């Protein structure tokens, strides 16, 4: 049930980000200055945190999507679907930790 909510909420968030992301990338067709200006603002701490949330949403949506496919396709996965929810969160945590380490390092300076 909660993963169903997570899947919907992350899906909507990713969709709206995608609209914005295509629009900001489209600035490469306007001028290098316009693109660099907007992307420059993405390198600030506040955007760095928003980007981290976005990457988190993408990873959760992706791994939970794989879980849904597995549960639909195999009775083993269906029987173990609770453990697979744990697998989604563990995989998520294992990938988010190094991502946050590096990305926040870039955003907050230092690395």
């Amino acid at each position: 049930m909660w993963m169903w909510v997570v899947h919907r909420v992350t899906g909507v968030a990713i969709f709206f980000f995608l609209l914005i992301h295509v629009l900001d990338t489209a600035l490469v067709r306007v001028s290098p200055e316009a693109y660099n200006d907007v992307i420059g603002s993405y390198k600030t701490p506040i955007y760095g945190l928003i980007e981290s949330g976005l990457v988190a949403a993408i990873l959760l949506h992706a791994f939970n999507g794989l879980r849904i496919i597995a549960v639909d396709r195999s009775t083993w996965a269906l029987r173990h679907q609770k453990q697979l929810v744990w697998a989604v969160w563990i995989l998520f945590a294992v990938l988010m930790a190094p991502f946050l380490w590096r990305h926040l390092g870039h955003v907050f300076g230092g690395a």
Partner: protein
Amino acid sequence: MTAPRLKEPQIPSGRTRHNAEKWSWVFMRISGPLLLVLIVTHLFVNLMTGDGINQIDFAFVAGKWASPLWKIWDFVMLVLAMLHGFNGMRLLINDYAHRAGLRKVLHALLGIATVVIIVLGSLVIWTFDPCLGTDPSLVPDFCKDLA
């Protein structure tokens, strides 16, 4: 013994949907794992390698799109992600917009947004000019040889 065959459900216009919802489901199942590979690679290359987000500027994009592989990569990612998102949002509208009029309006807005973003994004990828603009410090080095 066989089960009695049901008449196909009809939508008000009289057209039949010909398994449209099944194909929508199949599309999500195929595009999902593809998008996982496309997007995780995209995030890794752009945010984890080199200087991460600090390396991203016009010259970085020009460098990537100098290779047809990344153009095709980004194009496939754009189209699949927009269609996957379009279909997901369509299902959410069906679930939460109960009034028929509202549903129609939201579906129309969603369709317009999807077409506009796919067309705009495709034009940007396929008409990209790496030597655009007047400031030589912002474009890749090879633009000097072309000038």
